[in-house]
């Protein structure tokens, strides 16, 4: 309605994603086939883009910065890994490493049923909703916001990391889980599987983009922006902002979880490093660089930062941190709306002075 046309870039982005998803299987076998490495990389980047969207939804549109989104990403990842391991075990009989080095003869009881994907998926959703629901409810009810919320979520993901580092939790400890051989009955690591996973990730990205776009364009989306701009004002108009925030927060957690489920089969490992506070901070950096409050910005930010990181980590490993920190400072000081400013595509005005004022007040209760 009033959210003026971000239509062009949005449509373009969706088109590129869908074309890429279609082209990858179509080109296989021809001399223009993408290498497996590139295909895999594109699939991973798509998963990161989904993760970026999940954060943008609550940070850009609701004004809540989470520095713990790695937690939900990890839930998806871990559940996917559990499914893969258990499934591989059922099909091929391979006993996972962590069982071996812990000296355990069988899977812990809570692994039961994880070889059935629908069950695993349901568990992922349930756990994500449970954690995000409880944490979101108590935090939003106590009106914890702004930097406090950011710091507490960071502590939360850190706690989760410490827990998962423990080997006796039955989730592989520091080693995490790796050595997946079968997905849905198909062997992993083949060209076909790599392409299929990349295509699935791209399609999921497109789907999440379209769905989020519809959400933020709706009346509900307008209420999200209203909450971001002045929550008290909205509450004194009769709206239960607690419920609104909780719904969006849980939704965002679910999207992050989905990203984790897409990511793990493509990298072939999950371990507590995805729970490190640095990764969660980096997600915020992708969004900030791309331009928060723009779905397109979040996606482009995630793709760009990760592609550059991917390439520099082998081409010039030493300068990557300097480039990243320089980029952040540049974005923070000069382009508060990230690349969206740079491109002069001022689609909306998500960062008015009022918005900043709310942030400030949240910082000082």
């Amino acid at each position, binding site marked *: 309605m009033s959210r003026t046309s971000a239509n062009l870039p949005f449509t373009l982005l969706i088109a590129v994603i869908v074309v890429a998803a279609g082209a990858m299987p179509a080109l296989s076998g021809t001399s223009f086939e993408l*290498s497996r490495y590139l295909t895999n990389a594109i699939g991973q980047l798509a998963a990161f883009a989904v993760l970026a969207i999940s954060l943008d939804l609550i940070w850009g549109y609701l004004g809540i910065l989470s520095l713990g989104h790695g937690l939900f990403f990890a839930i998806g990842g871990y559940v996917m890994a559990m499914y893969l391991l258990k499934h591989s075990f059922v099909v091929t009989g391979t006993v996972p490493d962590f069982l071996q080095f812990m000296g355990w003869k069988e899977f812990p009881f809570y692994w039961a049923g994880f070889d059935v994907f629908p069950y695993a998926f349901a568990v992922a959703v349930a756990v994500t909703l449970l954690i995000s629901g409880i944490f979101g409810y108590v935090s939003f009810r106590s009106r914890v916001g702004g930097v406090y919320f950011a710091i507490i979520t960071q502590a939360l993901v850190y706690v989760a990391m410490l827990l998962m580092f423990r080997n006796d939790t039955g989730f592989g400890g*520091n*080693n995490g889980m790796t050595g997946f051989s079968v997905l849905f009955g198909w062997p992993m690591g083949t060209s076909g599987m790599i392409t299929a996973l990349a295509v699935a990730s791209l399609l999921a990205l497109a789907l999440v983009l379209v769905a989020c776009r519809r959400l933020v364009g709706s009346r509900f989306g307008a209420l999200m922006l209203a909450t971001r701009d002045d929550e008290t004002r909205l509450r004194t108009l009769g709206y239960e902002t607690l419920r609104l925030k909780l719904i969006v927060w849980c939704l965002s957690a679910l999207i992050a979880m989905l990203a984790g489920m897409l990511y793990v089969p493509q990298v072939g490992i999950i371990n507590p490093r995805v729970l490190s506070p640095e990764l969660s901070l980096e997600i915020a950096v992708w969004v900030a660089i791309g331009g928060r409050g723009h779905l397109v910005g979040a996606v482009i930010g995630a793709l760009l930062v990760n592609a550059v990181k991917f390439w520099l980590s*082998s081409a010039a490993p030493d300068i990557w941190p300097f480039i990243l920190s320089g980029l952040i400072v540049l974005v923070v000081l000069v382009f508060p709306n990230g690349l969206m400013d740079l491109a002069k595509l001022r689609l909306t005005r998500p960062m008015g002075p009022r918005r900043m004022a709310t942030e400030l007040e949240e910082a000082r209760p």
Partner: protein
Amino acid sequence: MVKFSRRSFLQASGLAAAGIASPAVLRSAMAQSGPVKLGCLFSSSGTMANLEGRLNYVVKMAADEINAKGGVNGRTIDVLVSDPASDWPLYAQTAKQMLQQEKVSALFGCWTSVSRKTVLPVVEQENGLLYYPLHFEGDENSKNVVYANSPPASSVLPAVDYLMGEEGVSAKRFFMLGSDYVWPRTINKQLKGYFKSKGIPETAWKEEYVPFGFSNFQTLVNQIRAFADQGGGQPVVILTVVGNSIPDFMREFANQGILATDIPVLGLDMVEADLEGLDTSKLVGHLNCWAYLQNAKGPANEAFLKNWAAYVKAKNVPFSGDVSIDPMVSAYDSVHLWAMAAAKAGSFDVPEVSKAFAGLTFDCPSGYKISMTGENNYVARGVFIGSVNDKQGFDILWQSKDTPKPVPFSPYG
């Protein structure tokens, strides 16, 4: 010498324009000529950088030595270096890139067991070859990995035997303190099995784990003192913490006034580099055990140390030229073992090279003649027990007579 080539750069940055990729045919044609490529998977940033970083240069140095003698099968060796940034998934990522894009003939890399386990499925799928230069927990035997250093049965157990023996300290009680991950867990599991087989009661040992990067050892050292003071025989600490936890532990240990003559510490992952920041006069006598120590006697070691010092100076390597640690030597041996296998096979194809492993021997800087059999991909090496001296190094306290046969799967697990 070469970092990633310009071509790979273009390909990787071509992500944005996903449609443009160089045709597969062209790429494979190029891989057939020119120098043969080897890849390194050692981090030069992050928590492992201080240890892993130096191995990149050792691999290059070994390649230079081989190139100076005319290369292998008529081709010179190019070493590609990357930075997995101490981030385990990135090891797998980089390994994929090396194998799929760069078509390297062999990989040399990984320090922690986690990173090796991450890379393992990649090398198996791509049928690559990974030389792993660390002593480790064993219980693994992939045809695509060469385990260039010792599994516990041929390194840790001899050291513990020594401690338990008359010549050692007749150790009767064991405090096992480790970082909480696969290597310490597995080592301790095997040690417990070993103790049981020796009839040592369960009350005589204790197991504790701390998180990675843990540094506040005050309470744990208190626990160790309490454990030691319970009586019942000479106590020892078997230390499997890694990284910065090692110097932090040793510092606290010395600070609470415990000497090696009271409770000796066997630091299984302790190397010269861990002592760099410490006042070792209060730590004299603590032990470590590796397949190589810098003080090893013999011309091979003299030559190695001289070459390394010269290489550091000539290439401006950002690591000390007068510190040499076991994994450096294992990495060095690995390159030579690979070159010998490739020359013997007359090919760079992994299956051919693998077939040539049986019967290879090499004069390792440690002074032993290390060897491979056709039975498995393990390398038989000697064992050293070192004793910390007041010059931040290790004196050789004991060394094995020959190279014990490596046993991949521990009978005590």
